[in-house]
């Protein structure tokens, strides 16, 4: 090929120059980052791992939606920063009889649209939630049959069986109060797109899958929040959300994993905040079949685990050991109960006693989200000769099998987490212990009896005793491998002052920004 066919050097530069010019034009047009630095002094920006699915508080059950909605709506009861149950929209409450709870409402509370928040609104909200046509995924109020207005500031909730922890359940989204007039006038869809509540922030805008903006409610009954504007930014990729924190586009990153927190390290300008969580993790054992039928084997497996080592090496310390399934903050937790000690010799002798001195093979399933922990557990159990085959499932498949009617769908052992958001041990035990519950794989009439006792009585002292006995049984019978309660990790900019809460939702009413 001769040189004459080729474009000259100048031609090449011309073409190349065009490309370069276009690229630099793009760069020039964008030298001002629009990450919201303009009004950064008054605005708090929080990252969310996913968008809210809907802003109708009765139709959601996912953490991102809850994080947004907890700032727009109020519940009848709330947890204070010390996790104590205190009044929200209800000032006080009492149990009238076994199946009636009476709530006395706070006066002069109005919704963001001016509508009064009274007993009629509470009754409407409860009825709306339990109406099957609402298709609510909120299940806490399953025993509630209805609500009765006594006077404008008093309302009774009726249950079909005694529900001793109903007031605690109402601190969750089952206890959210929505505006009847607004919903009737505008319809469900409009309400879900432009929610109106009584909460510390009013809704301003929602760009789907990108951001949700809220404004301080100047008439909030508990005092106007100090933050003028609260923005939730949807950032599904954990590394990008940390990059956004470092580049000053967000102030708080949620849903941090321990390794991401470590990666962030000691960089200036922000810190990693660890808040004790109530989600407990454990391994469910199939006590009805195979070697795990033998209680000595189950005890041996518990002795073989070195939970403290798991916490320090896999979770970088972001967890606290739990003796059974109940987190330390929950009502019913018995501090006298000690965790099963790590003791390899004891584990081996128990296995030998049960006729398994050569060990055995077993499957351990988990969601891919927990792969590091289950692999470490498999490694620890190998030390006493148990050959663990780890099966990792995508989170949705894992959950599908967990709640399916087939209790063996996840195999002989599976690793699972469970949030007892009511802060009452009842929630931690309800699905896993009584033999007829959906995730139970243990049949023990004595334990069933104790569950009935704590679930059906409103006498807290009696319930406390039942929980104490249950925890002793859980240690002795070892139908699970007990692990830890995980802490919640946030990366927070130094300009934010904010107290976290144990259930992990991002209530921002009392957060402050330092003006530096």
């Amino acid at each position: 090929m001769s040189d004459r066919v080729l474009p000259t050097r100048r031609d090449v530069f011309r073409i190349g120059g065009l490309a370069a010019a276009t690229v630099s034009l793009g760069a020039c047009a964008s030298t001002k980052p629009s990450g919201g630095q303009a009004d950064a002094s008054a605005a708090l920006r929080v990252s969310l791992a996913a968008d809210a699915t809907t802003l109708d508080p009765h139709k959601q059950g996912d953490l991102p939606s809850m994080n947004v909605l907890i700032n727009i709506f109020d519940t009848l009861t709330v947890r204070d920063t010390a996790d104590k149950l205190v009044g929200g929209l209800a000032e006080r409450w009492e149990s009238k009889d076994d199946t009636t709870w009476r709530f006395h409402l706070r006066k002069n509370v109005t919704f963001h649209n001016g509508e009064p928040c009274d007993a009629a609104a509470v009754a409407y909200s409860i009825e709306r939630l339990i109406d099957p046509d609402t298709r609510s995924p909120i299940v806490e109020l399953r025993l509630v049959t209805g609500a009765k207005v006594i006077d404008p500031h008093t309302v009774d909730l009726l249950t079909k069986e005694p529900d001793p922890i109903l007031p605690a359940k109402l601190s969750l989204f089952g206890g959210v109060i929505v505006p009847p007039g607004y919903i009737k006038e505008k319809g469900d869809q409009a309400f879900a797109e432009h929610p109106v509540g009584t909460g510390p922030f009013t809704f301003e805008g929602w760009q789907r899958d990108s951001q949700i903006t809220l404004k301080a409610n100047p008439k909030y009954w508990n005092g106007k929040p100090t933050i003028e504007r609260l923005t939730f930014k949807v950032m599904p990729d954990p590394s990008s959300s940390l990059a956004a924190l470092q580049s000053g586009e967000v102030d708080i990153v949620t849903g941090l994993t321990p390794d991401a927190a470590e990666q962030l390290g000691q960089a200036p300008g922000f810190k990693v905040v660890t808040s004790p969580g109530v989600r407990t993790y454990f391994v469910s054992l199939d006590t009805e079949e195979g070697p795990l039928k033998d209680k000595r084997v189950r005890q041996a497996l518990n002795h073989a685990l070195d939970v403290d080592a798991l916490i320090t090496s896999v979770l970088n310390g972001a967890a606290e050991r739990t003796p059974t399934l109940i987190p330390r903050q929950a009502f019913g937790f018995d501090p006298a109960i000690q965790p099963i000690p790590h003791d390899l010799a004891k584990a081996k002798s128990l296995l030998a006693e049960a006729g398994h001195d050569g060990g055995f093979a077993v499957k351990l399933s988990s969601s891919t989200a927990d792969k590091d922990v289950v692999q470490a557990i498999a490694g620890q159990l190998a030390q006493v000769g148990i050959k663990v085959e780890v099966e990792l499932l995508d989170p949705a498949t894992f959950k599908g099998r967990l709640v399916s009617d087939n209790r063996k769908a996840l195999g002989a052992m599976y690793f699972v987490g469970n949030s007892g958001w009511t802060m009452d041990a009842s929630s931690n035990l309800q699905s896993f212990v009584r033999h007829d519950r959906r995730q139970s794989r243990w049949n023990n009439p004595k334990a069933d009896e104790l569950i009935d006792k704590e679930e059906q009585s409103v006498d807290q002292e009696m319930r406390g005793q039942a929980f104490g006995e249950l925890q002793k049984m859980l240690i002795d019978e070892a139908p699970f491998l007990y692990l830890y309660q995980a802490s919640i990790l946030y990366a927070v900019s130094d300009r934010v002052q904010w107290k976290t809460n144990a259930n992990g939702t991002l209530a921002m009413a009392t957060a402050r920004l330092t003006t530096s």
Partner: protein
Amino acid sequence: MIRFVGKRVGHTLLVLFCVATVSFFIVRLAGDPVQQMLPPEATAEQEAALRASLGFDRPLLDQYVSYMTGLLSLDFGQSVFFHRPAFEIILERLPLTIDLAVAAMAFTLIVAIPAGIIAAVRRGTATDTSVMASVLVGQSTPAFWVGILLILIFAVNLRWLPASGVGSPAHLVLPAITLGLYSAAMIARLLRSSLIDVLGEDYIRTARAKGLSGVRTVASHGLRNAALPVVTVVGLEVGSLLGGAILTEQVFSWPGIGRLTVEAITYRDYPLMQATVLFLAAVFVIVNLIVDLSYALLDPRVRLT
């Protein structure tokens, strides 16, 4: 020509019908949205009640027939999680997806065409080798890594551009580059090899012999004849860019169709999964149709076959 167009349109409709049918049944093998919606502590009765109120307890064939009849009036059903019509949700994401696809395609062409031409005309030289080496790197680097790298450089260190999100043209720059890089590399390679073939043809020698300059020979004779395979690939790339760039959208928190698809799958939201699958299929077959038709315009021989 009309017969040709009619036949192609007929094919397109048939493909869409098959996709709608297959996706309807396949999503139902993937798991159950009711199980994803409810917390694990829900009772069996609560689960059954929710399933019934969503209509998922009806016989499968029954559900299929109402789905297909709905499609005729563009009714894709109501998303289970978002409590809104699935079609409306897709339409809402579409403009952002188009923005990103157009910007990425612009970047692709701006980079690929000069790179391909330079490499072809300087074939065998150090310039060719270095262009092709960069192209190879571009093609083999995964989008999530490029994305994070660009964020670290331009957002975290230099603070020139926002790290993620949408809102201004500046938000578009990094995702467009990330997304366009792979196609740019691929198209540059393709253009180079196609142009090398063409430049060896007799008519190029004729053009040179009649005294055309190097640039004009390449531009009007070389490029035009080398364009055909490139147009096909550009067309298909537009299809895949519109179909959503799942990784890029994830890294840059770009609320497009790709992320919507992932969300639909994560939640096992049947109506939304069906709608996104059908939408992606529609984009591909329509782009294919346009490419086929444009072939017929570019190359008269195609119409005859």
